[in-house]
């Protein structure tokens, strides 16, 4: 038993190492211009965000739709803290250089991004987590919108630059030049590793109990609010870090893009990967990003095969095909890619674990 456990651990570590090597290798081979590299970067960022959302929706059973709001907080925290002093006057062109007159390093700023998002979550959680099911969904969605409105508020423009773009902060490509994929994989890997540790601890078990049956969980002495709040804060922390990474990936930042449709996209990734499966979310993120940003892009431009103009191809067709695929998954493959199992659990016998989705 123990030997098999060790073998599994070594195998997992080798697997992770292989993924890192592959990421590094692809970037070295195809150069930073290649679309593969873009997909790897954005896919990894979305993987973290999807896993953080899965922690709530898949592991605690809280239908929360506030992820975009917490990402927004994280992304802004990171950007505001890291814009170089020399560029502040230009970025905050309408606000005399802004209020914040210092910069911090990339890693401290990312941690701050997570922490501030977590503080927001802790405050929001107090009222909101008392709500059940779809009311929670709509309330968290509402809070995300409120956060967006506040960030765009002119009065705190010197802090957030109002509705204008934030730019010139350190981005993925200039933090570790030539090794951007490795950097983002490292950060995301550490974060997902932490989430996995929590999920597999006694606290993670308590969270899964809440998902399965709130009333029974409470009768077993599990404090619902306390554990929900904990999961909400943890999830938001990593959503905040994910937001910071997204800001780094994008190179510029505007509150306007953090709309509820962003949360919906992440939710769909989680569902495609399988609610309650971390590895599913990761796989689905890469597939989702690769499909939407890369593989299906050809659908957006007119194509001539010989003299024949392929019908239907026009800007926007990509997203139509893509959303049809998503609907097929939602309707006919409800368990998603992984169901609620993990990649490393495949082949391990564990009862007949079928037919469940919550």
């Amino acid at each position, binding site marked *: 038993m123990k030997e098999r456990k060790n073998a599994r651990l070594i195998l997992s570590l080798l697997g992770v190492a292989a993924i890192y090597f592959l990421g590094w290798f692809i970037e070295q081979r195809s150069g*930073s*211009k*290649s*679309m593969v590299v*873009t997909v790897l970067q*954005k896919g990894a960022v979305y993987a973290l965000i999807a896993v953080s959302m899965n922690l709530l929706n898949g592991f605690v059973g809280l239908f929360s739709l506030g992820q975009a709001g917490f990402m927004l907080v994280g992304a802004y925290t990171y950007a505001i803290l890291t814009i170089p002093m020399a*560029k502040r006057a*230009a*970025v905050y*062109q*309408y606000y005399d250089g802004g209020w914040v007159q210092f910069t911090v390093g990339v890693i401290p700023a990312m941690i701050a991004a997570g922490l501030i998002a977590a503080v927001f979550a802790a405050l929001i959680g107090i009222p909101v987590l008392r709500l059940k099911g779809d009311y929670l969904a709509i309330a968290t969605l509402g809070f995300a919108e409120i956060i967006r409105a506040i960030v*765009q508020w*002119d009065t705190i423009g010197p802090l957030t630059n*109002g*509705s*204008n*773009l934030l*730019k*010139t902060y350190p*981005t993925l*490509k*200039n933090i570790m030049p030539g090794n951007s994929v490795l950097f983002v994989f490292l950060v995301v890997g550490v974060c997902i590793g932490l989430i996995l540790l929590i999920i597999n601890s006694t606290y993670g078990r308590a969270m899964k109990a809440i998902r399965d049956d709130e009333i029974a969980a409470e009768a077993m002495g599990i404090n619902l609010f306390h554990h929900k709040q904990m999961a909400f804060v943890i999830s938001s922390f990593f959503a905040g870090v994910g937001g910071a990474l997204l800001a780094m*990936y*994008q*190179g*510029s930042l*505007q*509150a*306007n*893009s953090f709309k509820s449709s962003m949360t919906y996209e992440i939710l769909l990734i989680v569902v495609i990967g399988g609610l309650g499966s971390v590895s599913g979310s990761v796989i689905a993120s890469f*597939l989702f990003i*690769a*499909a939407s*940003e*890369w*593989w*299906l*892009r*050809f659908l*957006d*431009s007119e194509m001539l095969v010989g003299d024949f103009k392929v019908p239907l191809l026009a*800007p*926007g067709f990509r997203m139509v095909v893509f959303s049809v695929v998503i609907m097929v998954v939602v309707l*006919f*493959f409800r368990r998603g890619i992984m169901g609620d199992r993990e990649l490393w659990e495949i082949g391990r016998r564990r009862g007949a674990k079928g037919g469940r989705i919550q």
Partner: protein
Amino acid sequence: MKKLIALVLAVMMLVPAFALADNVIRIGVFEPSTGDNGAGGKQEILGIEYANSLAPTITLGGEEYQVELVIEDNQSLTDKAVSAAQSLVSKDVSVVLGSYGSGASMAGGDVFAEAGVPAIGISCTNPNVTLLCDYYWRICFLDPFQGTVMANYAKELGATKAYVLTMLGEDYGVGLGKYFVDAFTKLGGEVVEENFTEGTSDFAAYLNNATAAGADVVFAPCATTYAALIIDQAAAQGVTYPLLAGDTWESSVILEAAKGKNVKVYCSTFFDENDDGAAAAEFVSGFKAWLNENADKKTNNGGNDIVAAVSALGFDGYNVALAALAAADSADPAAVAEALPGVDYTGVTGNITFDENGDARKDMAYIKYANPETGAFDFVKTQSVDD
């Protein structure tokens, strides 16, 4: 079923591996053809396409190359702009043209800078496009200039109190609004500022406020969607003061909204169809003929053959790119980037040379009036700023 999906996915992975033809130079067109700025973006693309149809080849190092336009839709959104830009970069373009809308340009700028691909902004007027990006150049005037021009013009119309209305979350409008306010207050005018949120439908209250505040001019740089509503409402209220805005309002949407109504709508823009210059006149007639030949193109131009300023700018942008390529004598983006600052090109919108920020030295704006009777823009005057 699952196997089938796996197969489909596998096939999709193979598709993007298209072959690169020899002797082709790619110019990226980074424009919105959908979204809020889709209409303007399409007109800009038309100018570029027309220029490409006139000059489809270029000779570099003694060899003739075909110039291929790679058009990518940035959907007028800053987050989508990033991936659109990446897609362009991954297709090995030598230089990029666009985008209509400063927000998308600023968002894409980073990608171009990191990939070392120079980009030429065509109608993006926010100063930060070039200021915060070393790989962005631009061939049009800037918002501080445009804001000042309109403030001056407002003053000339006899206004002392201006009402400025912009949309929250829109880089272009908010920026231009601020420059107008700065300039107008400097000229001794008084300003009342208000914002509206995305999706606002009823502007009655805003215009009421303007009237109540005693404004004698309204400056409302915003997307044409809202512009149409504002004009509509202004006509309904029978306001007497003129409505002013920036370059986005030079659009058939505005003409339609103003047609047959008792409103005075002015906007500043980059180019006038009835320009007397030989180059401009030739462009206008050629472009109109080209539009009329091709039904698709005409639809993209809004169904008529009115020459938009952004089309003229697009035309110039393409030729500036060719000039830079020729000067570099290479398709290598780095070489093009090096050659760009030295380009001196006289196009249909005037002479283009770049200053140290990468901005064209342009000191003239055209002010146009949306004539409600004819449903066309009347040229009012050219306006420059002296300081």
